[in-house]
């Protein structure tokens, strides 16, 4: 029920008791008045009947009808309420009868009675012989005087109509008076109450406005003592709140300015760091890339056994250095906030294909079994590169810490998400280490910190990337039995399989013409030698114009192109790719980049260019080039 309004409540409090009292008083007063009217009518009727009985006695004695009629007439004229009169003699005959509707039976001696007949009050009174004590010794009788004999009856009818009318008027008057009293009381109550409720309602309104934020709202004082204090209190409060809020705002402004300054400084530092990292990545990667290519090339040369051994060590060292560099750069890039996930539908089977190409061979080479399970037809909504990176790290970790048994890459659908899991039968993680396993440089089973066993940064990166993707990375492990890492990725809704997954790279010789553009002569030379060693015809130059000139001069049409992203001047890999495609149609182009920033990724994606980070591993380059050559131009 809605609570009653203040005015109405005050009005009820003032008027309700008065109304109850008025109604009760009216009821009592009217009932008493009506009762006394009834009594008065009855008493009058009895008195009149007795008077007539007394008067009629002599008329009845003398049989004088004229006398009786006169007496009856006098009585009727005296009282307008009389509607009928009769004088009846001892034999029951009516000597005088005037307008009588009821003629009662002869009553028992001595009985006076009255009764109601409809709207009429009937009074019956006996006419008694008046007794005078004259019977004594002189008359010869000595008996006491006998009771007066009844010589007749007087019947009197009185109309109750005037009484009822009077009762009605009485009731009406009482009601009018009560109503008038109530109205006057109500008006007074409302007027008096308004003196209290208006300021209270006004205060309530002002408080509501203050609560809504209008701190300039003030109460206009117009009430009595107690409420006036409240009004002043409200105004003081509003003023204090306003001043407190002003102070607060100033403090907040100052603090915000300081924070902004700090933030700007931090951002400046971060930007500097980022720029440094970008430069470092490029500058470090280029020679590392070239070194890798040269060593690879060296390994393919016909050297003696001892030299081959040295080359393998160099290869191993280069590989570790590349990994170390990649990982450090990645961590710093993630931490610098330079990596932001781009969510897009990703086919699980293609993702698994790529991971298998990348890692299955190295795992199997270690004498372990590699298996994949599930994921067919499932699409994930995620950043393909980041997810691939996480899984790659997990797989590589699994391979690294497993001596026998195998590694399982699995996908299981769970509602709207898929669980991507990497199982291994490795050494497992002790319970006490399970919480710290995601920290940087936390390595298990490698107290001697053998570089070949990794850097201890893999899980740390995984954890960071998973956080970026907002997908929890969980781990379960039993020491001595193995571990499972699980990442939960949301499913993309209904995306068709766009293309057939590339076939697993075949370790066969390649054929085709490949254009290579790189402004770094060292990298250009190493890449060209590597690609040529795989059986491809190569045209290499520092710019696109030169390489196209060489190719055209030889009368060849290229099947694929490899371009460095960052070239001399304003050139870059994307421009080069567009130039090449203008010339040779839809030529597959692979971009190599020392820094895989989001802008580079976007550009590569937009122009449908394959992208590979530097320093890249020769196997990876080979697999990609293979698929590009299979795809062919057009």
């Amino acid at each position: 029920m809605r609570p009653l309004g203040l005015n109405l409540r005050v009005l009820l409090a003032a008027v309700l008791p008065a109304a109850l009292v008025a109604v009760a008083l009216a009821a009592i007063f009217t009932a008493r008045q009506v009762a006394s009217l009834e009594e008065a009518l009855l008493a009058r009727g009895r008195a009149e009947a007795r008077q007539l009985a007394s008067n009629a006695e002599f008329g009845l004695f003398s049989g004088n009808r004229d006398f009786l009629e006169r007496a009856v007439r006098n009585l009727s004229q005296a009282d307008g309420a009389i509607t009928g009169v009769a004088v009846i003699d001892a034999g029951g005959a009516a000597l005088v009868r005037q307008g009588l509707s009821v003629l009662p039976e002869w009553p028992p001696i001595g009985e006076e009675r009255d009764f109601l007949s409809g709207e009429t009050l009937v009074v019956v009174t006996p006419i008694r012989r008046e007794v005078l004590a004259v019977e004594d010794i002189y008359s010869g009788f000595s008996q006491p005087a006998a009771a007066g004999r009844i010589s007749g009856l007087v019947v009197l009818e009185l109309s109750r109509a005037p009484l009822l009318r009077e009762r009605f008027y009485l009731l009406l008057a009482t009601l009018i008076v009560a109503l008038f009293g109530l109205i006057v009381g109500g008006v007074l109550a409302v007027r008096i109450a308004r003196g209290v409720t208006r300021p209270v309602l006004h205060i309530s309104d002002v408080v509501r406005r203050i609560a809504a934020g209008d701190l300039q709202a003030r109460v206009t004082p117009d009430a009595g003592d107690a409420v006036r204090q409240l009004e002043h209190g409200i105004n003081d409060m509003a003023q204090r709140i306003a001043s407190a809020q002003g102070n607060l705002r100033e403090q907040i402004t100052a603090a915000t300015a300081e924070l902004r300054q700090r933030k700007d400084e931090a951002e400046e530092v971060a930007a500097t760091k980022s720029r440094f990292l970008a430069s470092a990545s490029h500058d470090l990667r280029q020679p590392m890339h070239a070194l890798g290519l040269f060593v690879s090339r060296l390994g393919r040369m016909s050297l003696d056994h001892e030299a081959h051994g040295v080359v393998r060590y160099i290869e191993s060292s280069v590989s570790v250095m590349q990994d170390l560099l990649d990982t450090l750069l990645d961590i710093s890039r993630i931490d610098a906030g330079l990596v932001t996930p781009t969510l897009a539908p990703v086919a699980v089977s293609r993702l698994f294909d790529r991971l298998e190409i990348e890692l299955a061979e190295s795992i199997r080479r270690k004498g372990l079994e590699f298996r994949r399970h599930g994921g067919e037809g499932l699409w994930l909504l995620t950043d393909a590169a980041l997810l691939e990176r996480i899984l790659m790290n997990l797989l590589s970790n699994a391979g690294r810490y497993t001596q026998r048994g195998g590694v399982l890459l699995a996908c299981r659908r769970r509602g709207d998400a898929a669980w991507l899991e990497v199982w291994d039968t490795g050494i497992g993680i002790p319970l006490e280490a399970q919480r710290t396993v995601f920290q940087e440089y936390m390595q298990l089973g490698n107290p001697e910190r053998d570089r070949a066993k990794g850097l201890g940064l893999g899980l740390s990166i995984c954890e960071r990337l998973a956080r970026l993707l907002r997908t929890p990375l969980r781990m379960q492990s039993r020491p001595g039995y193995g571990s499972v890492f699980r990442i939960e990725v949301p499913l993309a809704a209904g995306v068709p399989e766009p293309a057939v997954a590339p076939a697993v790279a075949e370790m066969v010789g390649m054929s085709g013409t490949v254009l290579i553009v790189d402004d770094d002569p060292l990298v250009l030379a190493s890449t060209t030698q590597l690609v040529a060693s795989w059986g491809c015809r190569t045209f290499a130059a520092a710019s696109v114009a030169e390489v196209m000139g060489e190719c055209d001069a030889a009368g060849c049409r290229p099947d694929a192109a490899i371009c460095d992203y960052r070239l001399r001047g304003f050139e870059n890999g994307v421009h080069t790719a567009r130039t090449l495609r203008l010339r040779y149609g839809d030529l597959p182009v692979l971009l190599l980049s020392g820094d895989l920033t989001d802008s580079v990724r976007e550009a590569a994606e937009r122009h449908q260019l394959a992208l590979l980070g530097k320093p890249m591993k020769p196997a990876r380059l080979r697999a990609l080039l293979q698929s590009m050559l299979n795809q062919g131009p057009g």
Partner: protein
Amino acid sequence: MNAGFIRLFGLAFLCIMLYAFSGAALAAEPLVWVALSDAGGAHAEAAEAAEAEIERTGAGQGDALIRPWRELSGPPPRLIIAVGGQALSGMLASGPRVPLLAVLVPEWAFQRSVAGFNDRSNSAVLLDQPPARQFAALRLALPDRRRVGVVFGPESRWQEPAYQRAATDAGLTLVVGRVSAPDDLARTLQRTLDDCDVLLAVADSVVFNNASVQNILTAAYRQRVPLVGFSPSYVKAGALLAVYSSPTQVGRQAGEMARVFLSGRPLQSPQAPHDFVVGINAEVARSLGVPLRPGDEAALVQQLRAAERKP
């Protein structure tokens, strides 16, 4: 309890018994029984007056024995004075056969009671005033009113000739109404009132009784006819005047008669009361315009006595 005590107790008892019997033997037998119908009121008043009169000149104390009539027994007295109608009837029926003197009874009651008791001499001091005295009183009090109405009933009809004679003697005209049953009263009364200028009441229970007096008075008053009653009750009820004898007066008269009888002479015949009083209702007199005032009663009595003493 020893023998000595018993002897002493027996002696004392004997002495008491001797004293009692000697006392009774010494007292003389009462000469007169005064038999009362009623132990108090007018009857006792009349009896005491009679006793006083007997003892005033007689043998002395103890001559008269006053008792309610039922309590009287023993050796028959020489005379019985019966006060009131009941004592009269009772003594006649069951009392000793000695001469009987009735007091405080109207003549009609006395005559009806003694009828059949002729074996003894009976007399009375009657309550009825002689018609002549009443008419004389009327002439004195209402000299202008000559037509005297009298309504006789069954109990008073025998008096009509006496009234007729007395009226004639007094120079008045008697207007007579005769009522034989109560239902006739109103009509007869009205006729009588129409014809007379003063109404004289006579004792008759059919005409004048407690229930009828009011209407008779009313009817008479409406005709401006004064009513003359025969007892103080009538004066009180609204009669103009009444001539009557008090119980003391008739008691004293009875005592005189008893004294005469005890002295050896025969019992005198029934007598009308010698002494009387007149009662006047001054209010009624004023209402009717009759020139009678309070205090006129004594003068009237004097005048009446004077007239009666004249030969």
